């Protein structure tokens, strides 16, 4: 099942519980951030429109694109769109080229610039955390192990039984389903986690049922070919600083249009070069032979 997050900005009261929960579950320092960085996967900022008299709190995090540019450009395939819906980064593969950061249409991936062994960091949709409950076994030193008996690591940290219990409680909602820490923490249900198709239908239904409360757009449903994070708002997304100039076509297609031609180019150019070589060297041979014949004739005459 592919998951998604729906953020209804009209429901958000700006309490910051989502941000705090995110920092707690990832063991980041708890600060009131306004900018994403390697230790802030989600931000909350207030957008005031004096003319309209509106105050809107805007959450920002990874959009978890359906066809992510970051994953397509990664030369070692360290970034993956999982079947679960989350776009994840594999520390074991990354070589630190930072092409994902350049390619991301939402400027989401952040880097540990001060580290000697830097990681690319961004919202993981609590991918590992949500699946932690499936691993109940603990080895004799007290660390949680998976089915193969290997210790589970999140961000390079081994997980103790206590860690697991606190993470599982932070990522379990009232219906006893696994969900992202931000959605579990949200007191007003402004951030919902669930099945992508259901949430998208829910978003459209809200606009249809209450057309006066929303601008008629589900942000994230069409941008760059669709994402797994949707936003609803009662003021235009452009005025809230959303990336509104994006194509509705997935970005990786633009490079694939070129890359898929490579086999044809190699074969055609290879054959052409071989042919040119054959013709030019044959021409040389013939000319040398004719020169030789001429010389012999001239010798005979003299």
């Amino acid at each position, binding site marked *: 099942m592919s998951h998604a997050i729906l953020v209804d900005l009209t429901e958000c009261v700006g309490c910051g519980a989502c941000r705090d929960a995110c920092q707690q579950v990832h063991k980041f320092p708890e600060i009131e951030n306004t900018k*994403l*960085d*390697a230790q802030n996967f989600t931000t909350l900022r207030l957008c005031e429109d004096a003319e309209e008299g509106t105050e809107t709190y805007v959450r920002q995090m990874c959009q978890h694109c359906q066809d992510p*540019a970051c994953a*397509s*450009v*990664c*030369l*070692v*395939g*360290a970034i993956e769109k999982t079947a679960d819906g989350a776009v994840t980064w594999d520390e074991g*593969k*990354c*070589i*630190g*080229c*930072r*092409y994902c*950061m*350049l*390619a991301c*249409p939402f*400027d989401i991936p*952040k*880097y540990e*610039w*001060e*580290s*000697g*062994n*830097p990681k690319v960091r961004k919202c993981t949709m609590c991918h590992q955390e949500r699946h932690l409950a499936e691993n109940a076994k603990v080895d004799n030193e007290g660390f949680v192990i998976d089915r193969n008996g290997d210790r589970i690591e999140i961000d390079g940290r081994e997980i103790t039984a206590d860690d697991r219990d606190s993470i599982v409680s932070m990522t379990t909602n009232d219906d006893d389903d696994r969900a992202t820490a931000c959605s579990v923490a949200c007191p007003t249900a402004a951030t919902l986690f669930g099945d992508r198709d259901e949430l998208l239908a829910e978003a459209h239904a809200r606009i249809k049922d209450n057309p006066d409360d929303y601008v008629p757009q589900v942000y994230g449903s069409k941008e760059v070919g669709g994402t797994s994070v949707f936003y609803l708002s009662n003021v235009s997304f452009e005025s809230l600083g959303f*990336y509104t100039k*994006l*194509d509705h076509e997935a*970005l990786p297609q*633009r*490079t*694939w*249009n*070129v*890359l898929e031609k*490579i086999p044809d*180019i*190699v074969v055609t*150019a*290879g054959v052409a*070069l*071989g042919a*040119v*070589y054959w013709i*030019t*060297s044959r*021409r*040389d*041979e013939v000319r*040398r*032979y004719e*020169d*030789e014949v001429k*010389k012999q004739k001239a010798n005979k005459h003299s």
Partner: protein
Amino acid sequence: MKLAIPRITFWKAVAGIFLLGGLVAAVVRFGWGLGVATNLSDVTPWGLWIGFDIVVGVGLAAGGFTLAGIVHIFNIKRFKPIVRPAILTAFLGYSLVIVGLLFDLGRPWFIWHMLIYQNPHSVLFEVGMCVMIYTTVLALEFAPVVLERFRLQKALKVMKAITIPLIILGILLSMLHQSSLGSLYLIVPQKMHPYWYSPMLPVFFFISAIAVGLGMTIVESYLSARAFQKTLETHLLRDLARIMFGVLLVYFTMRFIDLLRRDALHYLVDGSFETMMLYLEFGLMLVIPLLLFNIRGFGQSRAGLFFTAFSVVLGFMTNRLNVTLTSLESYYREMFGTSYFPSIGELAVTISIVTAGFVLFGLAVKYLPIFPHHEEETVIDVNEAPERAAAPKIDGDPAAQLRRH
């Protein structure tokens, strides 16, 4: 035995200072990380090291495949004396590109991951593989020079037998990755200034690489002539310049049509930083070289050819830096109110890599048979001896050569 102490000249001192600066920057880079050594940030993840050390560097090394193709595939043998310096430049260029890459990668010790975790959808993967294989091909293309120096006849014979397939492979690899350096930017249409974002980027990158490959060959021939009293016939360089202008005219015609079709020409009068940079690029790469080349008496001289080609090289650098850095500036400004300019450390590393290129080229010319042995006297002017200049040289007994084929 007495060891001769090398004389310290002005240029040697300059090179020494530059290399030392690079060393200090390298210590900072690997000791304290990218954040301290560079002006890169979360919003400006790629900077001078990608823009210059890699994208410009690979382009400037394009003379290797261009000249190898002209001489060995198109069989225009009169350019043969230039192939070796061109291949040497290419080999050194690619080696230094890899050095530059190691500075830029956050985890350079994992560079081999590219070989095992392959992502065929990534342009960067394609570039990486091509650069790796092509550097090997260049090493093999250059190998005969070293083998000759040490008189290894058997190995030379083997190398001769595989020359043509190697050169064709080299051209194919170059086509792929020279163009792909442009394809790298196809995925950020919304971030780039319309002057430089085009679906045609890969084609533009490939064509301009051919032009600058020829330009670089002229430049290095002139510099070698001055530094080592080793030189090439002026008329050869003049012919190279003519081919270069042919390629440049094709390139700029396409660029112009592309700008026109994408409706980007109306920005030309906005007086912005980007517009100035575009003028600089077109001026250095096309207008100034055309003017210089057509100055009667000067344009066709050795120095005239040098300045013509050097301007093209500078224009090419401007183009690549425009695509990689300038074109993103308006996006950085609008979205984050920020701008990117390389740090002292980034500049120091780049300058020292360029310096290393000069030093290594000098050493190779000094100790290996790069330039032909009978130079100075054989300088022929086309105007004086048109037949000799035009006729291809045939060495030895022609009948024997024919039999060998």
